[in-house]
């Protein structure tokens, strides 16, 4: 694809609704107040694993201001979750610290919270099982009574398994000069969206319709899921999305509090709102998958990779969320990040009495990438090879069809790597002598991620309706939604580019399932790609109408009108866009300037062996990160981050750069500070005080070098970009710390404590070596 000169695309454009968001006018879920609205509160279990002997709600029911109380006995519902193994309200047993036992709706939040305390639950506490390896043992109790592990996977506590392979594994092993086998442990971390989870439900008893103000990322799947849960017809449920205060994957699954809120509204006949406190948010919102990865990799004497063999045990927690499907992404990374002649992948998600994980920006990829990039460094060290060189000779390339069947029609992997190596001064820093209290190191990490959606549902498409009114204003009704990532702005930019309508005459409507056309939702870095292509399709239809009317009005024969500044141009002819729209409306054919288009990406489903070209295109990126480690305190200071990413084409530079910086910040937190500390199923640090996010003073400069490969599948050649910047950050930081200190870390986060421990172990080893050396000299 050739680079076409564009007017707006590629130029930094301010956020479409920026003014509302800086002035306090934007309405988030927390800000909604409806007439007669009640406030809900949920009683959760005291113990992560117990039998419920009895629930007594009588005191709560008569508490002044309480309007209704529900328990599992009062409701007729279906289980929820990806595997439908999750009861909305629990009876019989509780299986993790999040488990919902009863819910109250009351006049205000304070009353609801007090009423919850009045509910008496008698438990028979059980030991519970908190280690997935323990849960796999024959004598372990069955954690989830709805799990189908015994029939499907040969173990009652396996929630989901994946097996994948390609190539001649044994042959490639035989070819290997070096084989590295390591075990990695990844922590449980959380999205920590600045706005806590929330929902407002309003059931209208007159017409049986339910309206939900919900911050889901996937409104149409959500509508279907909640309808299934409540045994309602999906079309009776209207999902309205208020402005969302952070998503990052946390709002892909529907969680019990959402149908619970709907049930409270159905029962009370009034609108009900549930808002989480920050503590609840830490305890209840989904997390990234904690997992143990055992990775074996090989390379031949030239450093060419030969094979990867990986076995993953994931802590599924008590119920199964979308998070159980992260292996779709992980197997892609193991099979196809760098050239991999042979690969064998096994992963098992194991039920435990821990809380369940969900989806999180990167979707398993940061974990996989950390293990792969560490193994690569180790192989380079063993072969005596340069760490940049080993990556470059194995890097993905344009035209490659990977063992899994991904087709790289464009690929910026090599230029991305070369760029960060050069710009960061990698060769010099990596080899400089490491002495003194403060040690500097640098590390590399690369990543592969879907760039054009991912076919995981029967449709990965998005609909668009366009309405050009009599005055030349354009309304874009898009199925896709904005969760802060800036997709609305990109859509408006596309409309400006194509139709020459100025920004202040463009409206984007995207928050109401009763109005907008279908879309699968915000995930897999797909929005600009899929919604952008959908919009382009709709614009083409709109232009056909406008072109033929304009030609008719000016009595010329052409289909090649240019659109600029609210006008249409052809040679010396020009006509106002609004005039053409009015003529279509008020003159023959008496139509409105309204069109509708549905775009389905060309990606295909994987086959039974998980092979196939699942995405419209693929994004590649590398990061080189420089750190300084204080060997006295163990503190790691990230000095600078160099990111180069194949984004296909830059659409909105300022928005894209913001995605880079935000992704790197979360990735750096994953590498260095963030960890949810669980003891026997209970969270010990449910606050920002105990769970450390990076702050302004921790944040390094982020140097970003986009690589433009102009991929034909994406709008103007672009690829999805939102998740990528987070993915290789932890890997690159871990490699940098190891370069500085000469010790390796196989678990995250790399805390000061871990650094000091590793340094003292290294010292002891050196001492021992010296003693042995002395002894051998003396004898």
């Amino acid at each position, binding site marked *: 694809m050739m680079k076409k000169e564009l007017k707006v695309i590629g130029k930094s454009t301010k956020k479409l609704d920026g003014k509302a968001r800086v002035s306090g006018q934007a309405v988030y879920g927390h800000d909604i107040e409806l007439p007669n609205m009640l406030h809900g509160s949920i009683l959760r279990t005291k113990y992560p694993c117990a039998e419920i002997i009895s629930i007594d709600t009588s005191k709560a029911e008569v508490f002044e201001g309480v309007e209704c109380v529900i328990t599992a006995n009062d409701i007729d519902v279906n289980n929820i979750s990806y595997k439908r193994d999750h009861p909305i309200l629990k009876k019989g047993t509780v299986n993790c610290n999040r488990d919902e036992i009863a819910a109250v709706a009351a006049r205000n939040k304070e009353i609801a919270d007090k009423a919850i305390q009045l509910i008496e639950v008698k438990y028979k506490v059980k030991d519970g099982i908190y280690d997935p390896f323990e849960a796999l043992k024959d004598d372990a109790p069955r954690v989830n009574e709805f799990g189908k592990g015994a029939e499907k996977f040969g173990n009652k506590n396996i929630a989901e398994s994946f097996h994948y392979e390609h190539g001649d594994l044994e042959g490639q092993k035989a070819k290997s000069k070096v084989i590295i086998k390591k075990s990695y442990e990844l922590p449980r971390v959380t999205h920590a969206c*600045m706005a806590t989870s929330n929902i407002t439900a309003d059931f209208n008893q007159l017409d049986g319709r339910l309206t939900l103000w919900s911050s889901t990322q996937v409104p149409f799947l959500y509508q279907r899921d909640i309808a299934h849960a409540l045994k309602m017809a999906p079309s009776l449920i209207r999902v309205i999305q208020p*402005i969302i205060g952070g998503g990052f994957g946390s709002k892909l699954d529907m969680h019990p509090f959402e149908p619970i809120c709907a049930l409270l509204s159905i029962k009370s006949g009034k609108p009900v709102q549930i808002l989480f406190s920050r503590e609840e948010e830490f305890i209840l919102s989904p997390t990234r998958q904690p997992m143990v990865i055992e990775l074996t990799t090989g390379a031949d004497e030239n450093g060419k990779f030969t094979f990867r063999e990986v076995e993953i045990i994931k802590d599924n927690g008590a119920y199964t969320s979308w998070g159980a499907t992260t292996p779709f992404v992980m197997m892609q990374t193991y099979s196809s990040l760098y050239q991999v002649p042979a690969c064998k992948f096994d992963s098992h998600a194991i039920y435990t009495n821990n809380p369940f994980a969900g989806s999180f920006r990167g979707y398993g990829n940061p974990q996989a990438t950390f293990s792969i990039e560490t193994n690569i460094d180790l192989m380079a060290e063993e072969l005596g090879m340069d760490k940049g060189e080993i990556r470059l000779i194995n890097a993905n390339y344009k035209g490659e069809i990977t063992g899994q069947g991904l087709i790289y029609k464009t690929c910026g992997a090599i230029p991305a790597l070369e760029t960060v190596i050069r710009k960061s001064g990698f060769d010099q820093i990596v080899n400089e002598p490491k002495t003194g209290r403060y040690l500097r190191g640098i590390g590399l990490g690369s990543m592969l991620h879907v760039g054009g959606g991912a076919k995981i549902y029967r449709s990965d498409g998005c609909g668009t309706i366009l309405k050009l009114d009599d005055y030349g204003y354009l309304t874009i009704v898009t199925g896709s939604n904005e969760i802060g990532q800036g997709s609305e702005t990109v859509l408006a930019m596309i409309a400006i580019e194509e139709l020459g309508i100025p920004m202040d005459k463009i409206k984007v409507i995207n928050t109401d399932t009763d109005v907008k056309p279908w879309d699968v939702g915000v995930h897999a870095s797909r929005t600009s790609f899929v919604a952008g292509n959908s919009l382009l399709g709709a614009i083409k239809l709109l232009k056909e109408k406008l072109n033929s009317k304009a030609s008719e009005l000016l009595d010329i024969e052409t289909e090649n009108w240019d659109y600029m500044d609210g006008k249409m141009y052809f040679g010396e002819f020009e006509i106002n866009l609004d005039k053409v729209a009015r003529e279509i409306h008020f003159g023959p054919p008496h139509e409105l300037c309204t069109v509708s288009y549905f775009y389905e990406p060309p990606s295909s489903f994987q086959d039974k062996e998980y092979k196939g070209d699942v995405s419209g295109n693929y994004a590649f990126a590398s990061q080189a990160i420089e750190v300084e480690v204080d060997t006295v305190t163990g503190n790691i200071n990230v000095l600078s981050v160099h990111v180069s990413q194949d984004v296909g084409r830059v659409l909105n530079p300022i928005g894209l750069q913001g995605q880079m910086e935000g992704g790197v910040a979360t990735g750096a937190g994953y590498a260095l500070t963030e960890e949810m500390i669980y003891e026997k199923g209970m969270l010990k640090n449910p606050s920002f005080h105990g769970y450390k996010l990076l*702050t302004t003073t921790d944040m390094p400069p982020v140097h970003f070098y986009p690589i433009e490969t102009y991929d034909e599948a994406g709008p103007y050649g672009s690829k999805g970009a939102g998740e990528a910047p987070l993915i290789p950050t932890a890997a690159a930081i871990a490699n940098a710390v190891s370069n500085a200190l000469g010790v390796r870390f196989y678990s995250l986060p790399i805390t000061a404590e871990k650094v000091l421990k590793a340094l003292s172990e290294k010292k002891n080893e050196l001492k021992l070596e010296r003693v042995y050396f002395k002894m051998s000299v003396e004898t």
Partner: protein
Amino acid sequence: MKIAFKINGKSITKEVRPSLLLIDLIRDVLKLKGTKPGCLEGECGACTVIIDGYAINSCLYLAINVNGKEITTIEGLSGTKSPLHKTQEKMIEHGGVQCGFCTSGMIMTTKAFSDKCIAEGITPTRDEVKKSLEGNLCRCTGYVKIIDAAEAVYEN
């Protein structure tokens, strides 16, 4: 208890219970929803408002303590006629807003800090600007653009 205070330039007298938090007075009683509840534990800064020139976390402050004081919330920075305040303009211009939930707090902190610096005739260094925002968490942006925006307030 009866308290009298000024908020966004308007004098108000209110009967409040002694345990009422300032954030609840602002959001629930006065219905100014631009001040955001991110944690209600004094850890995130989303609820920052300015009282007599100082940026404070309204979730840690009792409403009764505003008696006789002057509060500015995010709504006080832009009126129906007046355009956005410079701190707001810069935030948009530099791309410091993604989801926007932290934005009110970031802007109020920046406003208090820059008012003080400008009054004292100081242009702070980038590190000082960063330090001034250390108590404000953001999960979306990685802070760089927010810091850029807060620095740009000192440009002429």
